[in-house]
């Protein structure tokens, strides 16, 4: 027999873990211990998650189509590089493990995060009652891998700083990396907006 806090009318402070009684989401309540706003569930969780997911999907298109950087030498014209192009170059250089790391961080992780969060938000809206545990695990996966997509942003910052061979060669950041960085931030905010307790709110409690 398990009991949920919401059935006992208990709100748990998201900041300090303090429990409070008789909290109603339509009124303002402050945690008696730390003063943070108390809610039974994260406010407007599903709406915020969807809004940030839509923004992420839209930004993900220019992030992949536009060059994330350009290399330029005295002898050659500026050469644009996209995210996937960078992965292919690493692979062709024989650094297949680094190619795999960059592919996972820049392509697999963002797509996985967006699809999983969309699935979870849809599940809450449709009040799916099955596979509660599996969906909770999916959310924890998103939380755990989320920030690794920042990898490409750092790679470019370092390349730009290191390569300026007395004007002989230069690496310039491209517009794609700004869009990509925005995707990373949006998906992190989307996963922070989603409230995993909503998954279980629709379920039949054993």
């Amino acid at each position, binding site marked *: 027999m398990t009991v949920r806090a919401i059935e006992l009318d208990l709100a748990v402070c998201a900041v300090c873990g303090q429990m409070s009684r008789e909290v109603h989401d339509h009124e303002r309540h402050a945690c008696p211990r730390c003063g943070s706003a108390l809610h039974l569930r994260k406010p407007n969780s599903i709406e915020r998650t969807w809004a940030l997911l839509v923004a992420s999907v839209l930004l993900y298109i220019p992030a992949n189509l536009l060059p994330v950087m350009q290399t330029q030498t005295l002898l050659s014209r500026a050469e644009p590089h996209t995210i996937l192009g960078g992965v292919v170059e690493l692979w062709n250089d024989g650094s297949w493990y680094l190619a795999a790391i960059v592919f996972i*961080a820049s392509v697999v992780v963002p797509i996985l995060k967006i699809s999983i969060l969309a699935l979870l938000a849809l599940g809450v809206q449709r009040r799916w009652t099955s596979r509660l545990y599996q969906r909770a695990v999916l*959310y924890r996966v998103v939380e755990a891998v989320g920030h690794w997509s920042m990898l490409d942003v*750092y790679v470019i910052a370092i390349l730009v700083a290191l390569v300026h061979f007395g004007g002989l060669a230069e690496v310039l950041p491209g517009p794609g990396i700004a869009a990509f960085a925005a995707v990373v931030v949006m998906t992190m905010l989307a996963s922070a907006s989603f409230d995993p307790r909503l998954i279980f709110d629709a379920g039949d409690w054993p």
Partner: protein
Amino acid sequence: MVMEQRQHDRLIVCDHCDTVHRKPFLERGMRTRCTRCRAPLERAQRLDVRGMFALTVAALIVFAIANWSPLASIDVRGARDDSTLWGAIVASWDRRSFIVAALTALTLFFFPLLELLAALVVLAPLARGVRGAHFAAGMHVLRIARDWSMPEVFVLGTIVAVAKLGDIATIHLREGLFAFAALTVLITLVTSFDHAWLWDVATERDR
């Protein structure tokens, strides 16, 4: 009211699925998981408050080294050039990539620094057995900064960048990168504590 509060002190609620549990007694270093969704529920600290305070001081020293030492050097035709974290931030900014520069500065400098300073504000008074005047503010900062500080990703990013340049120039990994690797471990140890536990410790001191 007081009676009810004491009763609540013996309960713990899973953040992920809202299931209510009775708080078990935990030995040092032990952890529990939610019986319903298996999410981590509670962890008994391996270190006490004073140990965590010492680690925070160590992390701040390593943070200073990581930020002011070169991360990597590049040799081209006998000339050597190197870059620090701030070199990378300024170079991106100068080439009009403001989002890259801002995110790099925020996630590798400002948030980790805020995180460590907040840990200091919280832990220094607790180590002397009192709850500091800015305890609540420090805990709020810690909670937000934790999600946005990413030295571990940066260590991997630098390695990937160096590998990309390996064909066209000779690259040496420098002390700044090793300091970032050490900082990753220290920040993880300092900030992985159970926040609810620290609130409980502070509340206990007040009684």
